């Protein structure tokens, strides 16, 4: 087992509160929902398992308190309510990361139902073809607007960009260019000085 403190990214004498906070953040970050469209979702699950183990270990050893069940373990599997054996097989292939098998199965059929479009969208997602993925899932939603699974997948694609931006803003990223213009000006001035052998800002 790895050093549980390192896994959770806290210092060795962190308080229970700090550990819990770090744990919650990490679970959110590596939650299976976040990685549905990523071909390395297996690794994310592994990471989550590691995080859960580290947390369990620390909680057990710190206060003797016990916790009911780890988070993020329950993964709703695709196709639990699917009766069609063919599409279940496609779904299994996608889940196991066997994308080319899933793709050739989809190509082999003439069926163009909403589910076909949806699954093709999932295949495109895993291949990195996000544009086609989006239109394919969109088609599935249009064909069967009442289907929660399709709509959910589409919403997640829409929301993931906002999540990424949120992280950037959380790190201090700003679209506002006032400060930026100033920095650029200073930087340009600095570069000009450096070209001629001098230096305006000593550090860079």
């Amino acid at each position, binding site marked *: 087992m790895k050093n549980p403190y390192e896994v959770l990214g806290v210092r060795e004498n962190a308080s229970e509160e700090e550990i819990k906070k770090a744990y919650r953040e990490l679970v959110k970050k590596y939650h299976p929902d976040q990685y549905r469209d*990523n071909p*390395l979702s297996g690794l994310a699950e592994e*990471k989550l398992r590691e995080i859960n183990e580290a947390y369990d270990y620390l909680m057990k050893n710190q206060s003797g308190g016990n916790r009911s069940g780890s988070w993020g373990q329950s993964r709703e599997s695709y196709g639990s309510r699917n009766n069609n054996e063919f599409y279940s097989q496609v779904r299994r292939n996608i889940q196991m990361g066997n994308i080319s098998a899933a793709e050739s199965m989809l190509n082999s059929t003439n069926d163009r139902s909403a589910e076909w479009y949806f699954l093709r969208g999932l295949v495109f997602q895993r291949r990195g073809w*996000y*544009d086609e993925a989006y239109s394919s899932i969109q088609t599935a939603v249009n064909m069967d607007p009442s289907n929660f699974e399709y709509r959910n997948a589409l919403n997640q694609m829409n929301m993931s960009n906002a999540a*990424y931006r949120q992280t950037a803003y959380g790190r201090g990223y700003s679209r506002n260019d006032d400060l930026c213009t100033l*920095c650029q000006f200073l930087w340009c001035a600095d570069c000009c000085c450096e070209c001629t052998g001098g230096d305006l800002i000593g*550090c*860079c």
Partner: protein
Amino acid sequence: MFGYIFPEKPELKIKEYELFRAYYCGICKSIANRYGQIPRLTLNYDSTFLAILLSSISEVENDLKMERCIVHPSRKRGVIKNSDIIDYASDINIILAYYKLKDDWRDEKSIKSGAAALFLESAFKKIKRKYAEKCEIISHRLRELEKLEKECCNSMDRAAEPFARLMEEIMYYPETCKDEKQSDILKWMGYNIGRWIYIIDAYNDLEDDIRKKTYNPFIYQFNYANSDVDSFRERIREKVEFNLVYTLNQLAKTYELLEIKRNKGILENIIYMGMLKKTEQILNARSCKKIEKSI
């Protein structure tokens, strides 16, 4: 096609900035020592990012020295020395610059590019002997891209694929990747980086491509049909933005799976801020004002 990957400078710590430069200078000097002065001019920031990323998971500690150089003779600066990763990143830098110049020469009959490619010829031959397999794959991907261009491919996903696969290959440096997991992560990061570069470059070059009547995936995917360039850019912007940011998000999520040993601050600055900034700059640029690229 290069020079889009750059940190968001105001948000870098000074020590991170110094380190970034030490990598940059390391690559520059590595090129100079092994191939002479002229290939040095091809240096760009993308290869700096490659070196920083690969060394972030490497077991080998950086060998940082203070040195002078002819470009900045006044003061000593940090330079990373004796690193296989730096050498690899410099070789990749030259390979890509060489192919890019060849490509410009072929497509646009640019004499400047043709001549520059000749100057890189000897360096390129040496590298080709060292990484025969990699060079073969890279040129194979570029031939695929050329073929799609000839076919006037009307899907940005499909058009971006060869370059994305090319970056995937570049990110795979077996010497640092001790296990399959790490190299899978790097490859998928590479795929998304390549895809992002291809799409952002296509959007940035849209006006030029329309004027010169050269291939651009958006012309075919969104039916340009001789409308006004500005309103066309405006019309497709939302779709392009979705794809670019989605790709960055995938890159970021994949990056989070990597076991980082160093350079965390710089990498996260680039992945979460620098690349987003570039995306927004290019999407919102007025058509007359081209975004400056490094080289």
